[in-house]
């Protein structure tokens, strides 16, 4: 096999990031950490998209995944901001910061 | 390799040394204030040297001007951030110099 291409390195990293994030979502308790974990999962997805864009590069890298990732970053941050607002509100009203009490 | 390249390499290496020194300071110094001191002083100098080296390497006045402004605005932002962090630490979080045991945990 040839030397590893750039996109293969980052694609492998994206798989590890996605898995790390997924494990974090399931295993972390605190709202705050779960939100961060979903962000890391999302980063893994974006990294794989951009890696594929680099693989399909001609004169420039495939712009469609790039545009999707930019859109995705903004949407993911909006969703995370909303999740964070919910978490803060729950914390302010009930003092809870995880879902352990009713499970 | 031209003289300009050699100067650029020397400047960028010196800049990297100051970044390294700032990081060592961040990790090794005992309390918040001396760490901030290490970070802002050493890193700003390091960034300045790296920017100067890059400007010489690129040999383009427009790029050099952009690098200069990047350095100036980073200086401004990091010194302000340093001031705000230390003011908050002193006035609201009650951190004093020599109360630097928090990293032992």
């Amino acid at each position: 096999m040839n030397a590893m291409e750039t996109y293969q390195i980052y694609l492998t990293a994206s798989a590890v990031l996605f898995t790390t994030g997924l494990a974090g979502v399931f295993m972390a308790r605190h709202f705050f950490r779960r939100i961060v974990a979903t962000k890391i999962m999302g980063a893994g997805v974006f990294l794989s998209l951009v890696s594929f864009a680099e693989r399909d590069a001609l004169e420039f890298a495939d712009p469609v995944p790039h545009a999707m990732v930019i859109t995705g970053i903004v949407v993911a941050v909006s969703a995370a901001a909303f999740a964070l607002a919910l978490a803060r509100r729950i914390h302010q009203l009930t003092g809870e910061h995880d879902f352990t009490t009713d499970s | 390799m031209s003289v300009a390249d050699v100067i650029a390499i020397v400047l960028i290496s010196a800049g990297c040394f100051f970044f390294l020194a700032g990081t060592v300071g961040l990790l090794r110094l005992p309390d918040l204030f001396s760490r901030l001191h290490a970070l802002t002083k050493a890193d700003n100098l390091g960034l300045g040297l790296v920017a100067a080296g890059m400007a010489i390497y690129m040999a383009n006045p427009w790029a050099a001007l952009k690098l200069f402004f990047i350095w100036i605005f980073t200086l401004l932002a990091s010194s302000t951030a340093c001031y705000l962090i230390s003011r908050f630490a002193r006035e609201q979080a009650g951190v004093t110099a020599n109360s630097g045991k928090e990293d032992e945990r």
Partner: protein
Amino acid sequence: MSVWIDILLATLSVALAVRCLTAPTLAQCVFLFFAFGLTLALAWARLGAVDVAIAEAAIGAGFLGVLLIDALRDFAPAKEATVEDAEGYAAGGSAAEGSAAGVPLRAGRAALPLLPLAIAAVVFVLLTAEAVLNVRDGGGLTELAQENLARSGVDHPVTAVLLNYRSYDTWLEVGVVLIALLAIFAVGNGGTFARRDHVTHDPVLEPVSRILAPVLFLIGGFLLFLGKYEPGGAFQAAVLWGAMGILLYLAGWPVMTCLPRVWWQVLLTAGFGVFMLLGLAFMSGGGAWFEYPLAHAGNLILLIETLAALSIAAALTAIFAFFHEMHAPDATETPEK
């Protein structure tokens, strides 16, 4: 040589992600998340995705990081030492014994959650297999994007995709930001802001905000215009303008109350609304949804980008200001049960 830079960056980003999720305190979690985002931005740049790098560093690490830091005031107040917030998630172990990775995870449970880990392992194996085995080059949509660039009204392929080929996505994205803002308002008090007539004159922050705010506005406008030719564009500009709003807000200027409420509403909805009206106008003219007339495509895209950037910047500022004021020191509101 350059392969090693990529391997180093990839390893660093994974290591930071793991450290971020296993950090013993929430504050460490936030700052490692910052570092993670910035490392990722370097990875985007290495992959030739400069637009994505700017967006990630500015929104993914910067803006979200600021929101996370602000949330720390609720979850981990600075007065109590940083480790005290460990008690919340270390049901099984005290902060003293959970010195490292064990603390933030489910220390209280005897068995590991096997199903999620199994799913994670399968996903991992599949993705890695795709990465290493399925080697092919060329393809994708690059060729199509390249062919049509001359008819898109801009010279930068990513901007062409965002604002022309796939404007539908971008339009809805502006909508998502707006909906997120409304949802966040709904979670709190409905989006009213305390009137701040009094400017707190910090001797350093106030003059710095006077210098930096115009610079941020200028660089934002520059990036917006640059998007036509090079990496840059509406989102990057929006984040810089949003950063300007947040900086002014934090420096004590009455950002949220300086305009009448209705002006804020116009500002927040302008991007989404004008985008939609233009789309409808083209459709009624016989074209497809968002099919710009060829002669005016460049100018129309610039108009839409400017309005979208203004709306997103206003939304980001409002989200931050609202977050900031969620932490009311006089939190005497009666919880509705």
